[in-house]
């Protein structure tokens, strides 16, 4: 575990090897009840309060399939362009672990509900990469172990463990890609883009909030290298439970460098599971899989087969929402932005906020401007996602409306937003309380302009002489005099008017 290896540089690694990836993503479904019993799935309850004989694996208790869980699985399968099984069974995956009450996990084995699909994902430069989907299958989550007394919360060195079965039986969908080849140096980026696209898809389908930081979506990154041009895959490592988009990319990148280091020094890759460490960006060895673990799968005799009728599948297909990539492409055209801009919006987590702001009445350009500018900065400074800011899309739309009406200028609008974020009330309340209206009283404004001309005769002369650009200095003086509460464009008009110059 403590052996350090000298990594090969990323560029050198890619010069000699082609990476092959397999991504396994587990998604906790947002059903109200568990997969095989009626217990609540709500997060945050006291340990072991959301349990019953079935999810505790009590002698005699039996499972019954959650129909909403099956429907969610089909929705995901259809959105991933998969075929949906006409008939499939659950299977028992047998292994002993204290957080699994029955000592087998009810899962699916060789008869997944959905199979043979693909997901198109967009890379940073707007290019599209197709990831082939092997299968999506239904299973149940395990309970949670809390290892007490050890150094890192791992079982090693712990004095005892506590078990919470609230999570046991929560429905999971496991989505497995086919081997991803041909991504070359972009493999880590593809991994990240895939997980993100999948997350967007899951959210759009309304089957889960897919919050990675809460463990609602977890990714295993399987990676191997083969010499450039080879066709036979190398031995893979399985980096388990990578829990953020950034980590998915870093884990893939690290493993490419580590594998290359081992292989180029004549070593062999051990098939094993690995843990990813956020702090160092590296992985360490978990358990070695000398031979494939024998889970003794067999069809679950306590459950009847799942046989979704074709009519039902088509009903579900017809009810699918517009999928994220198609929607992004449509919005991109409607808003007239580039692919890279769209990626930036997505990266900032601002897409839905912009859409909602437009829906609340703002025009696309200003909605985008606020969320990608002022608000993105505020979110960044506060270290939160923009949807956690104390301002709603409707409020942003109101600010943008006030600007459009000429009641606020940009500078004032920024102050209004600052006030809303600080909890001073709605945009209109902030405008009132801070007295931020643009000075539109032509008389007062005219007086301020006269004053500025009188105070800056040199500048005035230049303008009269045709140097229109010099008007900026006079505008600045007027703005200063009105404490920023004037409409700069109107001020400029007045100056030119008074000096008898027309803008050419």
């Amino acid at each position, binding site marked *: 575990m403590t052996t350090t290896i000298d990594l090969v540089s990323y560029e050198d690694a890619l010069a000699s090897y082609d990476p092959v990836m397999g991504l396994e993503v587990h998604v906790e479904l947002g059903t109200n009840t568990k997969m095989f019993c009626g217990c609540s799935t709500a997060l945050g309850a006291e340990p072991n309060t959301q349990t019953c*004989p079935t999810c*505790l*694996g*009590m*002698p*005699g*208790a*039996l*499972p*019954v*399939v959650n129909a909403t869980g099956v429907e969610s699985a089909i929705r995901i399968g259809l959105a991933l362009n998969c075929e949906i099984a006409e008939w499939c069974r659950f299977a*028992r995956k*047998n292994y*002993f672990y*204290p957080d699994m*009450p*029955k*000592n*087998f996990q009810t899962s699916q084995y060789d008869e997944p509900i959905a199979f043979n699909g693909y997901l198109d994902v967009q890379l940073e430069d707007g290019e599209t990469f197709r990831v082939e989907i092997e299968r999506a299958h239904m299973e149940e989550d395990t309970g949670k172990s809390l290892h007490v007394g050890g150094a890192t919360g791992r079982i090693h060195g712990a004095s005892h*463990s506590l*078990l919470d079965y609230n999570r046991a039986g929560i429905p999971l969908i496991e989505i497995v890609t086919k081997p991803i080849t041909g991504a070359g140096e972009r493999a880590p980026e593809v991994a990240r883009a895939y997980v993100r696209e999948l997350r967007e898809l899951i959210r759009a389908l309304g089957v889960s909030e897919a919050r990675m930081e809460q463990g609602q979506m977890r990714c295993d990154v399987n990676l191997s290298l083969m010499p450039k041009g080879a066709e036979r895959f190398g031995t893979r490592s399985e980096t388990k439970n990578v829990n953020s988009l950034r980590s998915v990319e870093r884990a893939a990148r690290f493993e490419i460098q580590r594998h290359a280091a081992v292989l180029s020094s004549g070593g062999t890759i051990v098939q094993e599971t690995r843990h990813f460490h956020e702090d160092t960006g590296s992985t360490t060895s978990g358990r070695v899989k000398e031979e*494939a673990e*024998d889970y*003794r*799968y*067999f069809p679950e*005799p*306590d*459950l*009847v087969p799942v046989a979704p009728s074709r009519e039902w599948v088509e009903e579900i297909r017809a009810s699918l929402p517009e999928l994220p990539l198609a929607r992004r492409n449509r919005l991109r055209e409607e808003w007239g932005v580039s692919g890279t801009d769209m990626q930036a919006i997505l990266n900032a987590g601002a897409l839905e906020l912009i859409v909602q702001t437009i829906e609340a009445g703002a025009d696309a350009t200003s909605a985008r401007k606020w969320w990608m500018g002022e608000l993105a900065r505020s979110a960044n400074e506060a270290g939160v996602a923009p949807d956690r800011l104390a301002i709603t899309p409707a409020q942003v739309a109101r600010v943008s409306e006030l600007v459009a009406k000429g009641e606020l200028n940009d500078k004032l609008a920024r102050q209004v937003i600052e006030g809303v974020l600080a909890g001073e009330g709605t945009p209109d309340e902030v405008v009132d309380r801070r007295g931020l209206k643009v000075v539109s009283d032509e008389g007062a404004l005219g007086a301020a302009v006269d004053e500025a001309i009188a105070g800056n005769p040199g500048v005035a002369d230049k303008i009269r002489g045709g140097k229109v650009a010099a008007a900026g200095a006079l505008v600045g003086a007027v703005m200063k005099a009105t404490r920023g509460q004037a409409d700069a464009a109107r001020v400029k008009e007045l100056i030119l008017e008074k000096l008898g110059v027309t803008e050419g």
Partner: protein
Amino acid sequence: MTEIIKLTAAETAERIASGELTAVEVAEAHLARIEAVDEKVHAFLHIDREGALAQAREVDAKRERGEELGPLAGVPLALKDIFTTEGVPTTVGSKILEGWIPPYDATLVKRLKAADVVILGKTNMDEFAMGSSTENSAYGPTGNPWDLTRIPGGSGGGSSAALAAYMAPLAIGTDTGGSIRQPAAVTGTVGVKPTYGAVSRYGMVAFSSSLDQGGPCARTVLDAALLHEVIAGHDPMDSTSIDAPVPPVVEAARNGSVAGMRVGVVKQFRGEGYQAGVVQRFEESVELLKELGAEIVELDCPSFDLALSAYYLIAPSECSSNLARFDGLRYGLRVGDDGTASAESVTSLTREAGFGDEVKRRIMLGTYALSSGYYDAYYGSAQKVRTLITRDFEKAFEQVDVIVSPTTPTTAFPIGERADDPMAMYLADLCTIPTNLAGNSAMSLPCGLAPEDNLPVGLQIIAPAMKDDRLYTVGAAVEAAFVEKWGHPLIEEAPSL
């Protein structure tokens, strides 16, 4: 007046309903009988005297208030210790669940309570229902009331012994490979394995999920039918439960007849290993059926020869997975927890101490049969045999209405005789296993005593799936004819203990 304990369930229910007897009197008579003879028989693992009397008092109160009573209101019942009972110990005959008090009632138990049946206690059984003699119980064997040195059958030996010794007029069994029918046969009582899915398995501790089926045990065909009707029916908590009306079993039991019926006799259910007296009583039963107007059809079901082998791959495979949950961490026995031991070591020590030899044997067999590389050869092939057996039954039922056979090849054998010979023990279920594999229904009822040992012989009647009523139509006719021939029910020849 006949002694209370000798009444049938139907008679008991009638007398309670009419006020001739109170439910409390009936419960007390049976509890007194248990007290008097169960020390010798050991049919019960747990007697719920308080619970039984409370339920009986409730029945009497209901009657006094003029409320409607269930069809078996106040009738006492012996419950196999494989069904969970809220607040009452449930051991499944195993040390590993010693002291476990379930927090919930099995669906079957809920139905019994709703029908005002009085549950006297929990009966002895082979550990986890694995066995044909009740000798595999971790709590000691049960004696056969016909001869206490002999086995009462298994796994439900406690339930059948309780019936034969008049400790209860009704009992519940479960049948994975014959555990209702073989005990019924060797104790001279009636036992029915309903169609798979007819009786909810929710709260029935699993041995082999795709084979396990709860069912009624009684001293008469009609009593079994009355109980069948109470416990059968769809249960949303068991997804393998049949969502269809229960066949009209009580009506069938009241209208026994075989005239014009085609009755099959299967070639594969005879040959070596069958005791002469068993064969003799079986052949006499076939003659009786003819006399009653049935047409006898010879059947060839070649796949039945493979049934025992297939069963001993499928049942252990499922059990190896079903019993994995008994790890000492959440309930029941826990061994080796000294505060420093790992969970793995506690689980290992608990299982070592908590499971008996037969259970360990089957867990190992099943674990092996499901292993990668062996799955296709063992579990996979066994499933194919299962399909063949189902097809043989389907073909057979194109030609006949029911099939008859001996229930088990021999009468009750002495306790200890086969204890060290698992293969000999497994042969006891030769004729009952095909029905479990195919999922259809079957009954065992008494057809006489074997001349060589004066012990009961069982006649098995097999019907297609969902046609459980046919068992009762034929069974009631055969029972009536035998009673007429013998002048009394066979059970009356049992020693009085």
